[in-house]
């Protein structure tokens, strides 16, 4: 599972934000866009074109799946709800772990570099 997850890494920013948005709950496209905007405090805005281009790939890769039943309960019947699959959750976990390593390494490098520069 872990080996399978690492094949998808590193994730591009849009994919990472989409998977993060879906990590908490199943969302429809517009809600994902809003969620991404909130996550990034408005700095990263995902347009529908980018969103669905990424969703298309995530659906094909099996990281995300559509919850067809949610369409009927939705206020707008055109909406589809997307859910993170087990593989998608594993990939996200692996990406977060990778990023933590990167951040830890980055912090370490920055701390060790600071005195030299000073």
């Amino acid at each position, binding site marked *: 599972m872990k080996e399978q997850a690492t094949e998808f890494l590193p994730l591009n920013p849009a994919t990472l934000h989409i998977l993060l948005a879906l990590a908490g709950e199943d969302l429809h496209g517009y809600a994902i*866009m809003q969620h991404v905007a909130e996550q990034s405090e408005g700095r990263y805005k995902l347009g*529908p*074109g980018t969103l*669905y*281009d990424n969703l298309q790939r995530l659906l094909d890769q099996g990281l995300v799946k559509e919850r067809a039943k949610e369409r009927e309960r939705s206020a707008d019947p055109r909406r589809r709800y997307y859910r993170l699959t087990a593989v998608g959750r594993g990939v996200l976990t692996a990406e977060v772990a990778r990023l933590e390593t990167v951040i830890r390494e980055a912090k370490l490098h920055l701390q060790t570099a600071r005195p030299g520069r000073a």
Partner: protein
Amino acid sequence: MRVLYAFLLRLHPRHFRERFAEEMMAIFDEAGSFQLLGDILVSLIRQRAFRPNQQSAPARMASPSGMFQTLDTYTPRRSALIQGAALSAIFFGALVFAATNGARPIKFLIGSPDPRPGLLNLTRSSIEPAVPDATVRVPTPAVDPWRGFASKYFRIIYVLGALDANHDYVISAEEIAAAPVALRQLDLDGDGKLSAEEAGMCLGAGSFPGCRGENTVGDEHGRMEWSPDQMERFRAVFMGSSPVLAALDTDHNSEISASEIRNAPAALRRLDLNGDGKLLPVEIAPDSVVREILLRGR
């Protein structure tokens, strides 16, 4: 702006459009802004330039019912399948109904400029499927010799043309009864009687106001250098040339007088040899014509 957005969305590859177009329009309807137009434009370039072959090889997918196959990459909606099945059933039913009840099959004869059923009326019983060089009998169409004769006869003898009001080459009982009225229409000079010329005799085209040049007694150039005696002879010959004229001209003075016009119905009924109340071409044709047609028919 929505129309432009929908148009740009429509330019996306089919697989992308079918999968996400509805949702993208829903997002536009909810948060429509000018920025989304830029996004859809970028998306269009991305999909067309970098994802052109994505899912280009269509996978065969079975429908939920298992009865249909689709070349598309997605499973059709159940409602679409039901709708399609209903339409197919209606179309098939209409086709079967038309084939068995309502519609008449159209027959074409290849090579004919005028394709009509019955043009080549083959006798199916004469076709022997087991014999490759079987002779197919093509029945010759029945030709009514009387009709061919009558069409000219009724045109040449004006009296006959006037009597045959419905142009069926049969003088019916009603037409016999109405004969006086019909004959008076031929009285061009209004003297109350019909001369041989008014009855249809022509001495060359234009020799008489009503002469159509079809029944020329004179020579082919329409010469009118006839003596009064010759004219009288021509009139007598003409009035005796048709049984109808002869029957109407009871006093044989080469004209149909007012009293003869009045008595025309009785005179015509005397020609009704079979007593059916009407005059057929065979009953009013000159003897020589009757003989010729009968001999030809043997």
